């Protein structure tokens, strides 16, 4: 039983194979016919093509192409695919530039200008004075103007360029050689000097420059805090009895004239938050400098400020 089944299978396969062989033979025959027909045609085509190529060769096209391929090789040696891509991006600009440069009027200017270079024997050496004389000629003046505007445009373009890639160029450079210096601190981040707050700095002339230091308590007398140079740490704590006590500590007795000056200083401070210096005191009280030095012989500005419970006056006057 099994043998019979195998034989039937084999017969079916042989059938299929004979059909395939028949197809192959048919194909082969067709190909032979095709070659038979094509060969004369191809011979004709080849002859014509050879003739044409010969003519092309005689006209130097191949030599040109060979040279061109050498050029292409050189280009490939020096440029990467990325460069070419970049070139593609710039091609419009390049063409624009070439078009602008090859306009007839531009070319004629270049031609005229290069005449000077082709006939250098006609140009005589000149010195500084010669240059100054030449600068009076209208042609030279015009030329200078053109060259200057050229320079201006070159400068503007290169500045724009350097501004443009400063970021990534710097970053790349920094990646290669490491950062050369620390980044400059931003203006906004820079802390204002603590003894001169911005708002106070902006106000007023030199004679009443403020001195609103953050008061550091150095001594405490009877529950009242003083700074190291003897001013009230907290000016709002000031009272008249306290002023008299401070004055006594300074070796000063407060009479009417002295009280008037203290009140001037106190009033000015409460109004402007600025400790008045001697010049300001003369303006406020109407007293002369001499009067003030007579009332408070030793450093009157500071003494008055201490008694009036204001910070130390600033300014040189």
């Amino acid at each position, binding site marked *: 039983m099994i043998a019979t089944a195998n034989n039937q299978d084999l017969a079916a396969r042989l059938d299929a194979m004979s059909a395939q062989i028949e197809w192959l033979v048919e194909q082969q025959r067709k190909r032979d016919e095709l070659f038979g027909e094509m060969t004369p045609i191809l011979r004709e085509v080849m002859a014509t093509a050879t003739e044409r190529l010969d003519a092309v060769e005689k006209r130097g096209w191949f030599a040109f192409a060979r040279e061109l391929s050498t050029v292409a090789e050189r280009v490939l040696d020096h440029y990467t695919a990325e460069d070419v891509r970049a070139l593609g991006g710039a091609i419009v600009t390049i063409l624009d530039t070439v078009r602008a440069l090859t306009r007839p009027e531009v070319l004629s200017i270049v031609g005229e200008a290069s005449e000077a270079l082709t006939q250098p024997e006609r140009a005589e050496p000149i010195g500084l004075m010669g240059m100054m004389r030449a600068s009076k000629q209208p042609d030279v003046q015009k030329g200078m103007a053109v060259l200057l505007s050229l320079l201006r445009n070159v400068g503007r373009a290169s500045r724009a360029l350097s501004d443009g890639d400063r970021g990534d160029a710097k970053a790349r450079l920094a990646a290669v050689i490491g950062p050369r210096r620390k980044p400059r601190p931003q203006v906004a981040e820079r802390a204002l000097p603590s003894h001169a707050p911005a708002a106070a700095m902006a106000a007023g002339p*030199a004679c009443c420059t403020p001195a609103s230091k953050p008061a550091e308590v150095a001594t405490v007398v009877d529950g009242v805090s003083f700074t190291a*140079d003897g001013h009230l740490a907290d000016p709002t704590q000031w009272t008249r009895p306290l002023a008299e006590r401070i004055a006594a500590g300074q070796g000063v007795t407060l009479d009417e004239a002295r009280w008037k000056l203290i009140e001037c200083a106190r009033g000015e401070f409460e109004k402007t938050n600025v400790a008045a210096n001697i*010049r300001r005191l003369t303006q406020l009280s109407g007293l002369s400098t001499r009067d003030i*030095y007579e009332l408070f012989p030793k450093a*009157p500005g500071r003494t008055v400020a201490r008694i009036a419970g204001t910070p130390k006056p600033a300014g*040189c*006057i």
Partner: protein
Amino acid sequence: METTHEAHRKVAIICSHGGLDEAYPSLILANAARQSGIECFVFFTFWGLDVITEKKVDRLHVNMAGNPTAPMPTMVAGLPGMEAVAAHMMKKQMAELDLPSARDMLKILDESGAQLYACELAMKMFKRTRDDLVPEVKDIITAGDFYDLADGAQIIFT
């Protein structure tokens, strides 16, 4: 609450130049000394005499020529009248800051107890007499007198 150190302090300032910009440092240092309760005297010599000369004190000029920090090239700064222009501009700026004029500064110094002296030799050289000087000047003294006065003082030369 003056410290004992401050109580004994004394400065002697020598003012040897008569430009507006050169006079002010002396005058302001002297005034600041008095404000701080420091004994102070100023010795005016050579061109500094102009600062205490009646006819000159209101006309002190600023010389920009040859000054590398001047805001103009020396060729420009040397033009006639440029000193007056520079002085005018500087005086304007000082007025904006409410700085007293040189003459007022001398008055303030005198009233605050600073002592102003003129140099005797310079007075002879420039052929000036006591009458040419502003009234605030206390005396005309020699270099030797200066050293006597400066005994124990810090000396500042401007």
